[in-house]
């Protein structure tokens, strides 16, 4: 166990340079603002002295390394600056909106995994069958779908034509009140409060955006599941297991599937990155009040502090998630423990 703890510690240490790189890139992005940031933040009614005051207040009159030190110092205190569009601190806005984005992303990933994993396994165990062909078509077509377009197409079919889905106006219809905030996930909060009517309303709202995101992530997950299942099934230990007379189900699920899961887990990290990007587009289509639509609204009014805060938050989220996946990998795969 001590060896495993050391592996986890070294993996965490490896993530640190990446975090430093992310912070440097975000800092450079804030300094690459077109024109004079001080004049920009001072507003249109500013004169020479007020611009100079703002420049001093923002620390823009100092050298670049000094500015970087100040930037990092503010970051460490959780200060991402003020959003000019909402007047709130950026960090507060991001924290308030993050659960909405996470609820959508996780629901979508759960949905796509529950379809993609069986599909990939079936395609690998029955090569050349219709499931295999379906898998191949899905994989090629899935990566060609623009998420914002599939979202709109779903809205047209299920809201306008069939009337099955509620109008795409966010997490909850106006007639319902938000459930008491515990986790920020409406589905969980409503269930905890025992308010099943609100739960059903929230579930109806999340179906279309989640399906849109799931369709987007279906392709990479089923592709890697199929490929790694094929590889696992053709390896020696499977041949041995078959020769030993184990049933087909045991061979496929106990032996092959568990080994095939490891590359799938790694790919999920990559897929999560795509999903965070696609989230922005889906949130805009469905007026979902997450951090993606916050960033898009901020972009429209050139609220740079908000956009940079969003970029940094997304990158850190992604780094942390990849770290978590790697650590899970260490815990799941006994071979890594044996090596040390």
């Amino acid at each position, binding site marked *: 166990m001590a060896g495993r703890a050391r592996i986890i510690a070294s993996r965490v240490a490896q993530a640190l*340079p*990446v975090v430093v*790189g*992310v912070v*440097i*890139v*975000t800092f450079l*992005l*804030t300094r*690459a*603002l*077109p024109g004079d940031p001080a004049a920009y933040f001072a507003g249109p009614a500013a004169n020479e002295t007020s611009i100079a005051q703002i420049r001093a207040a923002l620390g823009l009159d100092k050298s670049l390394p000094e500015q970087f030190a100040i930037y990092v110092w503010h970051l460490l205190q959780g200060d991402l600056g003020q959003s000019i569009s909402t007047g709130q601190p950026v960090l507060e806005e991001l924290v308030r909106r993050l659960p909405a984005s996470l609820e959508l992303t996780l629901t979508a990933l759960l949905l796509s995994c529950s379809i993609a994993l069986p599909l990939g396994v079936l395609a690998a165990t029955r090569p050349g069958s219709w499931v295999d062909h379906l898998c191949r078509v899905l994989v*090629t*077509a899935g*990566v*060609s*779908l*623009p*998420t*914002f*377009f599939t979202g*709109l*197409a779903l*809205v*047209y079919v299920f*809201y*306008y034509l069939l009337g099955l889905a509620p*109008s*795409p106006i966010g997490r909850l219809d106006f007639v319902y009140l938000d459930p008491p905030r515990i986790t920020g996930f409406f589905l969980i909060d409503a269930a905890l409060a025992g308010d099943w009517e609100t739960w059903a309303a929230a579930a109806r709202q999340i179906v279309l955006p989640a399906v849109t995101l799931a369709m987007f992530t279906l392709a990479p997950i089923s*592709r890697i599941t*199929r*490929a790694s299942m094929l590889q696992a099934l053709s390896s020696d230990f499977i041949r041995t297991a078959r020769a030993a007379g184990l049933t087909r189900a045991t061979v496929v699920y106990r032996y092959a599937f568990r080994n095939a899961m490891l590359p799938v887990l790694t790919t999920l990290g990559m897929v999560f*990155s*795509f999903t*965070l*990007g*696609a989230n*922005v*587009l889906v949130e*805009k*289509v469905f007026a979902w009040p997450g951090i993606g639509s916050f*960033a*898009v609204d901020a*972009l*429209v009014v*050139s609220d*740079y502090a908000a*956009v*940079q805060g*969003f*970029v940094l938050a*997304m*990158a850190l989220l*992604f*780094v942390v998630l990849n770290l978590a996946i790697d650590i899970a990998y260490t815990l799941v795969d006994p071979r890594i423990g044996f090596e040390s």
Partner: protein
Amino acid sequence: MADTTLTHPAATSLRHVAYVLRSNPVTGVAFAMLAVILAAALLGPALAPYDPYASDAAHALEPPSWRHWFGTDNLGRDVFSRVLVATRLDLAISVSAVVLSFVVGSALGSAAGYWGGWTDRVLSRMFDTIMAFPLFVLAMGIVAALGNTVENVVYATAVINVPFYARLVRAEVNIRRESGFALAARLSGNADWRVLAFHIFPNALPPMMVQVSLNLGWAILNAAGLSFIGLGVRPPTAEWGIMVAEGANFIVSGEWWLAVFPGLALMFAVFTFNLLGDGLRDMVDPRMRT
């Protein structure tokens, strides 16, 4: 002498291409689709039946008909003409972004793979850092920081694609650095950059071509996504992403043709490049076929 040695492999590879095309007709279809896209990009403005920017309030929001194949938008502009004309801009953005990342990625990747050491360590860290961002989000941040123009969309798309090329080239160059032909070229007095550019780098081209094709589709999606959220291209310019964004307001009231046709054009283009990439991969490396 030179002729026989040169034509022989060329003839073989031609036969190989013909063989792959026969065994996988989908690749042939993909090339035909590519021809359609290129024709639309080159001849689009000449072929368009209407002026894509001419509004006609009397015929606003008409559904598809024989007069207007894809209907008209809220200003009475012909959607078919706009979709056709937009091909050139969408293709130009993605092609220039991919060319940029190809060139920069090749140079940096070659340097990292050939010289190794500190060059390699610093460059690899840089690529890791770029890859640590959700890529679409990084592109958003870059465009927001550099300014909201089409050129900056190109640069942002190029930056997020550079690591893919650089890593590929780095690996290909690294394994050939000490190979016999590279040592021979160096011994006969070629400078490092010459060995790298004319002897080692060409070996990386086949897998790079596959990457280019897959990347083109991705770059189109990325650029369209950026203009969908209001970055880069601005109205009234005809571009697929922004046309979908403008049409989105009319979806809920049933005027589907505004958003659907540019969206389909977008899907057609991305699908073509993805099919082409898969087909090229079969030609370049049959073992990687899935």
